[in-house]
């Protein structure tokens, strides 16, 4: 490898694209250097379920040939990791569960297909909370992922393998999914950039469903510009997803540099109440001052039903989960119990053995809130409160362009710290869940450290205003270098 190609792992996706275009290094060299890092660090972090070294090297060689023929695809040769919730044809897709330990999808998820067609090279599949149900990566059948900033701590979840791999500079970018905060919270806890687009902006086809009215695919990267690059490829209408939205895809990179003059930033008073770690709050306030210095104006907004967002979520999401998970029956695919005497026993034991404790709890919570006699009191009531929460956001966006606040209440917590009480774990997502309930785009960007652990700034916008979120985060990143900080052990 040429000397100019040293330290490729420290470069962002955008910088790598420039280097490849300039012929500074080849896709093959880049792929080899990152595969070597994955081989060296992947196991200790437990960030990967599967590494696809052989197919990655082949794809890299193909990308180099295309470039030599002056016909490179837009992401030609750029490495990526897919959360193991995205189906990949011919490569095992486990969703972090024993249930799908041997599952090999016959097709690619639309997100995977679009990124591959654009030339991105898949290096592997990242570890995750089982079926994306968790906020710490501790519910994975394959064991917890470790946080590159402190191996005793959680990288967040459910996209914890993706966030850890990007933070440890094993890969410049990864896909993730976000149902209640599963991209943004792990991004905050690992010092990376997490983007959850508007509901329906990115296809859910081939993305194993958890809660279909909340799930959305997005990215974990090291800069807002990188997220803009990937979203431009991932977004768009897909006839194979019945909730995909048929809206034109703008050029997300075009307006990144625009100064924030005139931008109205909303601050929610309740976000800074007792639940938020004081040092964390100070970092977020400092970040708001940076936006202000770039021309934004800050004003208070009210989200009166904010306190009800977590309980609303923990009715709606388990209800949808319980319906979605009914497809796992031990008959068509997935784990099957041995020696069942009848069909009922086959269903119950296959599911009892195949699912972990948190997934079972959510299925049962969902079954309960949907069952006869309880449906109106829980599920219907939750969908009404959800409407109120969405209306709060809509009212706020009449006065402001983005709402800014903390992504998570604390920096990364110790593994094992919150596993005894599900409610403590659920409250981790208090600031992020509202965007899912209302279908809004949201982003987390690193905004400093508390006790040497990264914390995130959370930005939410009205539907389809991803470009504004990316512009806001990019400007912030021009004035700060928190997103450039690398954990010492991985520099």
């Amino acid at each position: 490898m040429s000397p100019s190609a040293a330290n490729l792992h420290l470069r962002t996706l955008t910088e790598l694209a420039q280097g490849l275009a300039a012929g500074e290094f080849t896709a093959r060299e880049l792929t080899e250097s990152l595969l070597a890092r994955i081989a060296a660090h992947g196991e200790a972090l437990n960030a990967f379920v599967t590494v696809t070294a052989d197919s990655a090297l082949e794809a890299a060689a193909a990308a180099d040939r295309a470039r030599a023929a002056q016909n490179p695809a837009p992401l030609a040769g750029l490495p990526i990791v897919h959360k193991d919730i995205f189906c990949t044809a011919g490569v095992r897709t486990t969703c972090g569960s024993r249930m799908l330990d041997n599952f090999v999808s016959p097709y690619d998820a639309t997100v995977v297909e679009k990124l591959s067609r654009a030339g991105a090279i898949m290096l592997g599949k990242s570890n995750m909370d089982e079926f994306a149900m968790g906020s710490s990566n501790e519910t994975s059948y394959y064991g917890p992922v470790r946080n590159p900033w402190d191996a005793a701590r959680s990288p967040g979840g459910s996209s914890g393998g993706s966030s850890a791999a990007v933070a440890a500079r094993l890969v410049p970018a990864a896909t993730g999914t976000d149902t209640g905060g599963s991209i943004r919270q792990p991004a905050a806890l690992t010092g990376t950039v997490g983007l959850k687009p508007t509901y329906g902006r990115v296809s859910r086809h081939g993305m194993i469903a958890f809660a279909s009215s909340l799930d959305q695919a997005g990215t974990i990267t090291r800069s807002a510009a990188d997220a803009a690059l990937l979203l431009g490829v991932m977004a768009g209408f897909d006839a194979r997803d019945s909730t995909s939205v048929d809206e034109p895809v703008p050029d997300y990179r075009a307006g990144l540099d625009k100064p924030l003059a005139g931008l109205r930033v909303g601050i929610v008073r309740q976000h800074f109440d007792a639940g938020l770690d004081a040092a964390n709050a100070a970092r977020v306030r400092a970040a708001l001052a940076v936006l202000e210095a770039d021309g934004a104006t800050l004003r208070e907004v009210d989200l009166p039903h904010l306190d009800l967002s977590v309980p609303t979520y923990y009715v709606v999401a388990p209800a949808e989960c319980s319906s979605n998970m009914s497809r796992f029956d031990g008959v068509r695919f997935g784990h099957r119990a041995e020696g069942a005497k009848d069909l009922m026993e086959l269903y119950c034991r296959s599911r009892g053995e195949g699912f972990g404790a948190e997934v079972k709890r959510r299925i049962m919570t969902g079954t309960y809130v949907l069952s006869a006699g309880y449906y109106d009191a829980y599920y219907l009531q939750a969908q009404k409160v959800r409407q109120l929460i969405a209306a709060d956001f809509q009212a706020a966006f009449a006065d402001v362009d983005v709402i800014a606040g903390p992504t998570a209440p604390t920096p990364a917590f110790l593994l094992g710290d919150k596993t005894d009480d599900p409610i403590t774990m659920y409250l981790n997502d208090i600031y992020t869940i509202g965007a899912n309930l209302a279908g809004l785009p949201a982003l987390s960007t690193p905004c400093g450290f508390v006790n040497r652990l990264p914390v995130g700034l959370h930005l939410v916008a009205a539907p389809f205003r991803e470009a504004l979120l990316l512009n806001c985060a990019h400007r912030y990143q021009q004035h700060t270098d928190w997103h450039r900080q690398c954990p010492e052990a991985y520099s």
Partner: protein
Amino acid sequence: MSLSKEQVQHIATLARLSLADDEAGDVVDKLSRIVAFVDQLKTAPTDNVIPMAHPLNQTQRLRADEVTEGDERERIQANAPAVSDGLYLVPKVLE
């Protein structure tokens, strides 16, 4: 509110989940805590509020009723735990 062991067993049966004996106590405890937590929704005033059906008020899109896939049986059944002659095998249903 607290759920009884019998209630939890009934929910598990509805959900087609077998619970090991050593799991049951923990499930009763944690499920009770979750239900108590979501019970706070009951006090929210929601008179005349229409329950949300879709976050962006989109209606369900329909497609033409046309065959778009070929015969994929073998590829799809490659993931099945037990098949024979293109059929899925299950324990005997009728004697």
